[in-house]
């Protein structure tokens, strides 16, 4: 029989401890990644309105691409896990359905985000 690592086992599929931990890790990373994002847009950026060409220039370097993918991923995880937490706090009963919807929604937004990034690179 396959011996799954302990991380993937436990109570149901909810993995409370792991989502809690990921929420902390994503929070810590967002402090950095979002910080750079805002800094890049407001401080580093000289012109009044952000233009396509500027954005494209930034995204021509690999670290920036990575930065935005991470920002997207952790931002979405943090946001949607946060929403889920609020709902459970309020006494949510239909947990599995909600998780399903949130995952689909999150994945969709991630797809949209990645699509946008690709648009800049191409």
């Amino acid at each position, binding site marked *: 029989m396959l011996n799954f690592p302990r991380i993937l086992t436990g109570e149901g599929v909810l993995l409370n401890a792991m989502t809690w931990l990921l929420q*902390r890790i994503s*929070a*810590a990373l*967002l*402090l950095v990644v*979002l910080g750079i994002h*805002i800094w890049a847009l407001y401080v580093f950026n000289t012109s*009044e*309105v*952000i*233009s*396509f*060409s500027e*954005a494209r220039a930034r995204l021509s370097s690999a670290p920036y691409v990575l930065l935005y993918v991470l920002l*997207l991923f952790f*931002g*979405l995880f943090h*946001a*949607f896990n*946060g*929403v889920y937490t*609020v709902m459970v706090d309020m006494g949510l009963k239909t947990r599995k359905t909600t998780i399903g919807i949130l995952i689909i929604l999150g994945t969709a*937004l991630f797809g*949209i*985000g990645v*699509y*946008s990034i690709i*648009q*800049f690179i191409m």
Partner: protein
Amino acid sequence: MPSREMVASQRYKTNSQVWNAVGMWAWMLHRATGIGLVLYLILHATLISTSLISGAQSFNATLTMLMTNPVLHYMELLLVGAVIYHGLNGVRLLLFDIGIGFSKQKEIFWAAMVLGAIMWISVVVVKLS
């Protein structure tokens, strides 16, 4: 079992929160800004991506429209405030998570608020100048 079953089960919920305490307000604001930021994030991602569907021109047009709108210009200050609050209080919560500051939670909150106010005001000054 009379004493267990007699339970006057009609539950009359009274006001349970402790409103005159820092921790409660810190949490309320954290929730409020959090939900606000989620909504912004969804809006932000969809706007950027939809504007890119027809290429650079539409992107530039949308951004110019958004960034020159005076109402949105000021509303952005709110967004910045929310990010600063959520971030700084988030740092405070992370401190608790690694086991620091339980006896000084109120002091930490106010320190974070002072720092946040300085950050926000400097953004306001830069933005309005």
